[in-house]
């Protein structure tokens, strides 16, 4: 089993080598300073969840890793490469795939085109059949306009299309937001399945109950900083603290 030490929460659920290390990450939207020094890491094969209140900086953290925040400083190291200065298309080609909170389904593309949009960056991605096995709804709606899908189907499309590319590091921003419980369950199964197939997942969630079903480790983001972190096994003794952090 995983070894757990409170002194170094960062290295608890270690199952493989570290693939992403973020150190002292600061980021700005225009003039407003959003991230004030984010430190965390993700190891190969883990599901790591960033928790925190609205506006804490979770989404900005993902966008900074993806390279779509204009101004960022500090260090982001992915598989040994420093990417904090890189453009997002280069970062994507290193094997990081991003599923944004607003899902980013294109209205002028049908479902098939949406699915085929992200280019294959390396071999080993899921085949279309494998994606349809995960999300059978998509197969039936291949010729529909992307934005004509229900919210749940759009989320499936947004996740499904990044599984094709061969990227093994997925960043999912609030994949359960606004969805019905049965769909949330389906997405939970999908994440578990991807994890079992060796994908590494960095998740942002407001829905803590959902996160608890899939995550190996948690980091708490507040005011643009990581203020705490623990492994899933330590969850029971941290529940009270967590309620204070999240204000639930």
């Amino acid at each position, binding site marked *: 089993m995983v070894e757990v030490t409170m002194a170094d929460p960062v290295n608890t659920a270690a199952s493989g080598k570290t693939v992403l290390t973020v150190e002292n990450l600061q980021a700005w939207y225009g003039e407003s300073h959003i991230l004030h020094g984010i430190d965390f890491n993700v190891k190969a094969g883990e599901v790591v969840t960033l928790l925190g209140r609205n506006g804490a900086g979770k989404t900005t953290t993902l966008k900074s890793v993806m390279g779509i925040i204009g101004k960022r400083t500090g260090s982001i190291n992915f598989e040994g490469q420093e990417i904090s200065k890189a*453009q997002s*298309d280069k970062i994507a080609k290193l094997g990081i795939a991003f599923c944004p909170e607003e899902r980013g389904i*294109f209205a*002028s*593309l049908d479902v098939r*085109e949406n699915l085929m*949009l*992200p*280019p294959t960056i390396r071999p080993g991605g899921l085949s279309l059949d494998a994606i349809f096995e995960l999300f059978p709804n998509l197969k039936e709606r291949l010729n529909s306009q992307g934005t004509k899908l229900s919210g749940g189907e759009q989320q499936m499309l947004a996740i499904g299309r*990044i599984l094709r590319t061969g990227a093994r590091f997925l960043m999912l921003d609030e994949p359960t937001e606004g969805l019905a419980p049965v769909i949330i369950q389906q997405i939970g199964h999908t994440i578990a399945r991807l994890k079992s197939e060796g994908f590494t997942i960095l998740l942002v969630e407001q829905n803590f109950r959902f996160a608890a079903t899939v995550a190996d480790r948690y980091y708490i983001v507040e005011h643009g900083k990581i203020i705490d972190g623990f492994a899933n096994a330590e969850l029971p003794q941290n529940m009270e603290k967590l309620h204070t952090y999240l204000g639930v």
Partner: protein
Amino acid sequence: MSINLQALFAQLLVGLINGSFYALLSLGLAVIFGMLNIINFAHGALYMMGAFAAYFLLNVLNIGYWPALIVAPLAVGIFGMILERTMLKWISGLDHLYGLLLTFGMALIIQGVFQNYFGSSGLPYAIPDLLKGGMNLGFMFLPIYRGWVVIFSLIVCILTWYLIERTRLGANLRAATENPTLVRAFGINVPRMITLTYGLGVGLAALAGVLSAPINQVRPLMGADLIIVVFAVVVIGGMGSIMGSIITGFALGIVEGLTKYFYPEASNTVVFVLMVLVLLIKPSGLTGRAA
């Protein structure tokens, strides 16, 4: 009143020819606007450069009409891509007004340079041998070159539509028009796509210029005269739609032609009257998205 069919068809043909140029030019403008969010006022000057490129190819390098149909749009398209990389790139994300002023300035400079060397009168460009002469269709006499321009323009428009609406590359383009940031985060080189898109739009304008050379002669201000009508066409059709700009281009050419037959006095203003009406009733254009 009795209808003189011969004259009516002749004006319809003129309308179709003009419609071909409107369609090719407004198509390029729509493609550029979609991707770069720039209203390309240099379009008329680049159309003129296409005609001049054909003229130079023939008179300097002795390269005729048929190769020029490919070489001139390529050359002017590359010139356009250089403009995009060196100037337009820097104003992306700014208000439309900046793009409008910059491209308008480019148009004035390009036209000024050509006027300086070639004056304002036209240079002749001969119809290629294969397309000389005409056909008697029974109801009218059809000059072959004009028929060719209409059919070839239509084919190019439909191919462009197919490229954008039905291919993988086109899907990338449409997606990047909607959300360039996310498309880039998927690993697609969006800045390169923007440059190529500008090159494509400019190439279409240059192609129209080559097609026009044997009909309208080659003049530094040929684009400046045409582009005003083309912008009215674009306003009527709406900026957003590829098929919309093609159909509106041809349709307005025909409307102009019919007006020339039925009420010649209004033929120069009918497009602008329609533009005013469309702006009053549907400001985003007949097929356009609301801005």
